[in-house]
Each structure stands twice: as structure tokens, then as C-alpha cells.
């Protein structure tokens, strides 16, 4: 019983810590490193370690927190994150099954790209109904490209580091599990 309470408390603390760290990266890091999406990197790495669907719950809470401080219509970020996590799981289970560092970077970049596609699609859809303007310019594409590249790189570096400590993520052990 006590173990369950401690585990739940730990999970809540982890969600809060990730969100606060994301706030700090967003506010303090210099351009273009402010584009690193820590929430996405965390969810991606969690999905690599556990594909049972628990990551969707983390995504739900972090998505709700993000929704409080973004300019898009409520639900756009949340749904984009939800669909992105489902597509990423499918991608990691059926296509990019290798766990080398390069494949992790590629998978993270592809996953971030699909997140942005979902986001833009849903944003355009809601803007059409709420009669809000959203302009897609070359600068928007450049900002998204920075975000995808830097987040993928950050995810790969984090994976390299964590896989040394956490056996389940280490490519040398994956085949024997």
C-alpha cells in the first residue's frame, strides 16, 4: 500500500519536475536552444522503455499543463501530443526497431515532425471554425526545423547517457529481453 502511494507521488513529482524544467529551458536558454522540447524528449524516452501505454497518461497531464500557457485553442496541443504518441509507438514497434543512437535520433526527428504536422492540421481546423488567422511563413518552417533538429539531438544524447545506467534502454541488452 505504502509502496503504491510512494510510486504515485513519485510519478506526480516527475511530471511536475519535467514541466518546470521545460519552462526554464523555454525562458532561459538562448536562441535557438530555447526550441528544445523537453516534454517531447521525456515522453519519447519513456516510450522506448515502456510501450504499455502508461506514457499516454504522462502525455495527458503534461499536455493539459501546456494548454494553460499556449496561444492555440484548448485541445490542439493535447490532441496533437496524443496522436503523436500513438504514431510514435507504432513507428518504434513496426518500423524503426533498431535501438542504435542514429536510429533513435531519426525516430525522434520523425516523431517530432509528425507532432508538428498534427499540430498544424488541428490548428488550421480550429482556426477555420473560430475565424482566427494563422499565417504559415518560411519563418514558421525554420522555427519548426530548429525544434525538430535540436530536440532529436537532445533526445539522442539523453538516450546515450541514460542507456549507460538503465539496462532496459541499452542497445546491447535489448536483443536478450
Amino acid at each position, binding site marked *: 500500500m505504502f509502496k503504491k502511494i510512494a510510486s504515485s507521488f513519485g510519478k506526480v513529482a516527475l511530471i511536475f519536475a519535467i514541466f*518546470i524544467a521545460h519552462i526554464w529551458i*523555454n525562458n532561459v536558454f538562448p536562441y535557438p536552444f530555447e526550441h528544445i522540447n523537453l516534454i517531447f524528449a521525456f515522453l519519447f524516452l519513456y516510450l522506448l522503455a515502456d510501450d504499455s*501505454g502508461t506514457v*499516454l497518461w504522462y502525455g495527458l497531464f503534461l499536455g493539459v499543463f501546456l494548454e494553460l*500557457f*499556449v496561444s492555440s485553442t*484548448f485541445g490542439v496541443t493535447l490532441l496533437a501530443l496524443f496522436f503523436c504518441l500513438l504514431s510514435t*509507438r507504432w513507428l518504434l514497434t513496426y518500423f524503426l526497431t533498431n535501438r542504435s543512437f542514429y536510429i533513435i535520433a531519426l525516430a525522434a526527428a520523425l516523431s517530432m515532425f509528425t507532432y508538428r504536422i498534427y499540430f498544424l492540421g488541428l490548428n488550421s481546423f480550429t482556426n477555420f471554425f473560430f475565424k482566427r*488567422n494563422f499565417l504559415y511563413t518560411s519563418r*514558421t518552417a525554420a522555427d519548426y526545423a530548429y525544434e525538430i533538429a535540436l530536440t532529436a539531438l537532445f533526445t539522442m544524447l539523453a538516450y546515450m547517457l541514460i542507456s549507460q545506467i538503465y539496462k532496459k534502454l541499452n542497445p546491447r541488452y535489448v536483443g536478450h529481453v
Partner: protein
Amino acid sequence: MRKSNLQKNTFAIGGIIIFLVFFNYLNWFDFGKNILRKIFIPFISQSGNFSVQIKDNYEFFKNREQFFNAYRAAQLSLQKRDENEASLKLLTEENAELKRQLNFKEKTKYASVLAAVIGNNLEGTEKTIIIDRGEKDGIKPGNPVVVDEGILIGEVVKVENDISIVRLLSDNQSKVAATIINKEKSLGVVEGGYGLSVKMNFIPRNEAVQIGDLVVTSGLESNIPRGLLIGKVAAIENEAYQPFQQAILTPSSDYSRFVYLSVILGK
């Protein structure tokens, strides 16, 4: 087992998201949102203040030459400021005298709300900021946001009960109708998305624009009053094959260092 767990989680979370969106549409989720915001705003505020402090304390130069150039430019600017200050004093005295003589009535000011900047928007790809005033203070989407005594810095794009999100002029989604203070009072559109500077497009090619000309809002948009300062012309691009000329502007305020600002509520 894993697949069934995933299916269960997917359906449960999909259902929760649909409920959340529906509840939010009916404003039933406002209480929860306010509590969550109260938890996170101190962290956003702290990181925002820390970021401003860092930017205030450090200035980076690539080499010695760049540093000395910046130093000389600062000296010249200081000298010019002294001259301006002297002429401003004379003009102020003259103005006060004229006011007394003509019994000048002070212009009606726009109703505005003072707000503090909490931090940046968490959607990292946008140049938007979060302020601590919202719907309960009378703010509406589209309200212009100014600093000092009328320098336009952006427009409110989203309003919640206790916070609002302001899109800065430097954001790539931003567009504002503007006028150059020159002989022809040239009209154009000021757009963001060019790093620290902003660009004024659609200026007729036959109108003379000089470097240093001031750019203000034109008042052609229903929500933005005329005469709010945007910046100064820093460079002009007038190509023979283009139907319009463009001006690159230096904004009158540094978009990354706001602490307090005012939201103009109505024209």
C-alpha cells in the same frame, strides 16, 4: 496483455481529452485551470525574471573590433542624446508656455490596464509572452499592447480569466498597418519573423523614405489607435523589379526585456 493495456489506455485517455475539450468549451474547467496556473505561474515568473537579468548583465561580442565599434557608437549616441535633451528642455518650456496661453486641454487618454510579464509562451516556436491580466480586467483579443509612453510591442491573441497571451511584433504571425513619418506619410504593413528587427512591406516605390524616419501605427485597423510608435527605419530595399519597396525597422523597444506593459482596452 500489453496490447490490451494499450487499447484500454488509448480509449480512456481519448475519452478524457474529449471531455476536457467539451468542459473547457462550456467554461466548466476554469476552476481547475486557475488552480493549476497559480501553481506554475511563480516558476514561469522566476525563469522569466532570471532570463531578463542575464540579458541585462551580459552583452556578447565576436571580437575586439566589434566591441570598439559598439563603444564608439554608444559614445556618439550619448552625445546625440545630450543634444536632444537640451533641445527637448527648450521645447518643453515653450510647450508649457503655449499651453498656459491657449488653455490647452489635455488630450483624452485611452483606457488601459497595467500588466506584468510572467514569461514566454511555452510553445517554443512562437514569439509570444504571458501577462498577468486577463478577461476579468477587461482585456479582449486584438487589444494593442504598449510600453513606456506609447511604443507598440504587440497584440493580445488569447485571453483567459486571469492571464493573456501577447503576440510580439517580431513574431512571424504578426502584421500591423503602419505609417512612416515622412513627407508623403507612406503607408505599409509591419511584419515580424525577421529575428530582432521587423520589416515594413508594401510601401509605394515612388515615395521617399529615409533612414532614421519614424514608423507609427496608421490607425487603419479598428482595434489599434493611430500614432503608436513602432520603430525607426534602419535600411531600405527598393528594387526596380519589385512593385513595392521595403524598410527594415529597428524596434523602439527591446522585445526580450519587458517587465511591465500596458494593454489599451479600447479606441
